[in-house]
């Protein structure tokens, strides 16, 4: 796999359920192909409920029913034999957890064991992979928490005794203390004030540069992507619709949905009414035919209603899935409708 630490091929993962005898299928991940390079920070953005969490659950090997991988693969290369997490055995996955691969779940601050002190939780997860115990272990953890602007006293606390942002930092600490090669993070800084958020992001960034780790992270906060991602992938209705180096995505997006997304950033000092994207988010149980964005797309033409636009190169390192990629113009912040080239 050479330069790539992760290769995802035509991945489809659906939630398959049956309610009162009626089968329901939510096509949350519907044919995603992408690669993550070694030492790369890959940001994922997209609409709420577009399948971002589902996608990275597969990457994190946290696939549980009703979520099923229908087809495709997601293969890591950690130096040893490549591991395709869609078919790996629990033992194979255990072998890469924590040391090679760690996962900060969305809302994970609420998953800390409520009856164990933070210090114990660290021991449970990190002592063995780190091969440390006693005071050496404690010292390492305290030092690591310091980078996250947490005092050693949190080790004596129970989760409910900490604020939301403190718990969020504890989970980041847990996921990073073993210095894994690949970190998957789902909305890791939503509960932090902007001062601490900046600190935590630079910690993550430093870890990444020092250790040569790769990161895939999901956030709605486009200004976080702007400052930490090397490349960004935009997911809409279960599909990757655009992928580009960070600067390019912000200055020259080639998909109308991405153009909308980067322009929708609110700013301090701005009180103009920002209209939300028109129309409803598509249903992943019965997604629109053709381009899934067509019912809401200001550039849509007849072809879009029936033919699925493939994700193809539109520039260096830049892919877009839009029949009219060349007509997409960056939007002035504050206007939500994608503009048509004259």
């Amino acid at each position: 796999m050479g330069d790539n630490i992760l290769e995802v091929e035509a991945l489809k993962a659906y939630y398959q359920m049956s309610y009162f005898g009626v089968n329901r299928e939510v096509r949350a991940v519907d044919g995603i192909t992408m690669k993550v390079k070694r030492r790369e920070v890959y940001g994922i953005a997209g609409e709420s409920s577009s399948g971002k969490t589902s996608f990275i659950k597969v990457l994190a090997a946290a696939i549980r029913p009703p979520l099923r991988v229908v087809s495709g693969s997601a293969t890591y290369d950690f130096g040893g034999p490549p591991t395709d997490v869609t078919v790996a055995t629990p033992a194979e996955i255990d072998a890469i957890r924590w040391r090679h691969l760690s996962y900060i779940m969305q809302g994970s601050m609420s998953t800390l064991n409520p009856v164990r002190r933070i210090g114990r939780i660290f021991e449970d997860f990190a002592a063995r992979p780190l091969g440390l115990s006693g005071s050496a272990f404690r010292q390492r953890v305290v030092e690591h928490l310091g980078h996250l602007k947490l005092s050693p006293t949190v080790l004596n606390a129970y989760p409910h005794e900490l604020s939301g942002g403190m718990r969020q930092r504890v989970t980041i600490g847990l996921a990073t203390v073993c210095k894994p090669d690949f970190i998957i993070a789902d909305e890791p800084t939503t509960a932090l004030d902007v001062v601490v958020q900046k600190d935590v992001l630079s910690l993550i960034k430093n870890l990444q540069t020092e250790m040569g780790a790769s990161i895939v992270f999901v956030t709605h906060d486009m200004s976080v992507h702007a400052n930490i991602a090397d490349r960004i992938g935009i997911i809409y209705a279960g599909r990757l619709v655009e992928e580009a180096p960070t600067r390019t995505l912000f200055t020259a997006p080639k998909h109308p949905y991405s153009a909308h997304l980067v322009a929708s950033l609110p700013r301090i000092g701005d009180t103009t009414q920002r209209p939300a994207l028109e129309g409803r988010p598509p249903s992943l149980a019965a997604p629109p035919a053709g381009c899934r964005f067509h019912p809401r797309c200001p550039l849509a033409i007849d072809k879009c209603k029936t033919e699925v636009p493939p994700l193809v190169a539109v520039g260096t390192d830049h892919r877009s899935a839009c029949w009219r990629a060349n007509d997409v113009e960056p939007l002035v912040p504050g206007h939500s409708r994608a503009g048509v080239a004259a």
Partner: protein
Amino acid sequence: MSSLLEVADVSKRFQMGGILGRQEVRAVDQVSFAIAADKPEIFTIIGESGSGKTTLARMILGLERPSSGRILFRGEPVHHENKADRLKFMANVQPVFQNPFEAFNPLKRVDRYLQSTARRYLGARDKAAIEAAMDGALQKVGLSLAEIAGRFPHELSGGQLQRVAIARALIPNPPLLIADEPVSMVDASLRMAIVNLLKALRDDFGVSVIYITHDLATAYYISDRLIIMQKGRVVEMGPARTVLDAPEHPYSQLLKASVLSADDAGAGKLSPANDLLQLSNERLARADASRLEDREDGRRVRV
């Protein structure tokens, strides 16, 4: 002027860490403000992570008792021993919590959750009335009963779940909503939709909202007044735009300076504003002897 809510000199201290290594945490330290009954507003609380925002919200909701000071809703204490009084109070002051994954019982279908809220507060009995109330509240947040019926919390995305949480809070038509980071998990478009919804609740239905957030841009966009907290204390408060346009306290300035911008996308500007950080720490070191001072433009600043 009669107050809808009056928070007077409220403090909260916690003992943290049980018997061993016990520490006292001053979670909230002498906070005062009032919201008028005849002037619905969006009152925003921003500040440091761990500065006592959620603790303050929980005390206003009567879920936690202040160590000192008092909180009155329409002139009456918010703490009720009696179950019926408590229910009456809760119909008036509804919460939306920080983390939707925490707010829902994972084993309970989300529509059941709305159902029991409707039953409890509206006294509604027949199925049609209950469903109408649920669907009405869900429509206000851009969802529908058909979409969420029969689903468990883990079957909904973070954004969907947070909208359900807001819909649930709207069922009893409360005059005061306490929203603790209601938009931190939704996309920018939906974020604006929810923030506009809060605005509409204020303008069209006279609902006051205590809006707790880390997002200074939406705070600027919708708030009438705001307070900025650090380590349990209010460091600056006043008309939202006056304060955010030109913050005076070093911590307020630090907050504003730390907001990430997308203007230099790809440049990775993550270095902290060290000068402001130092100024802010110096102020913090002598905070015990500080007090809030009035300014002519209507703000109060800790000096």
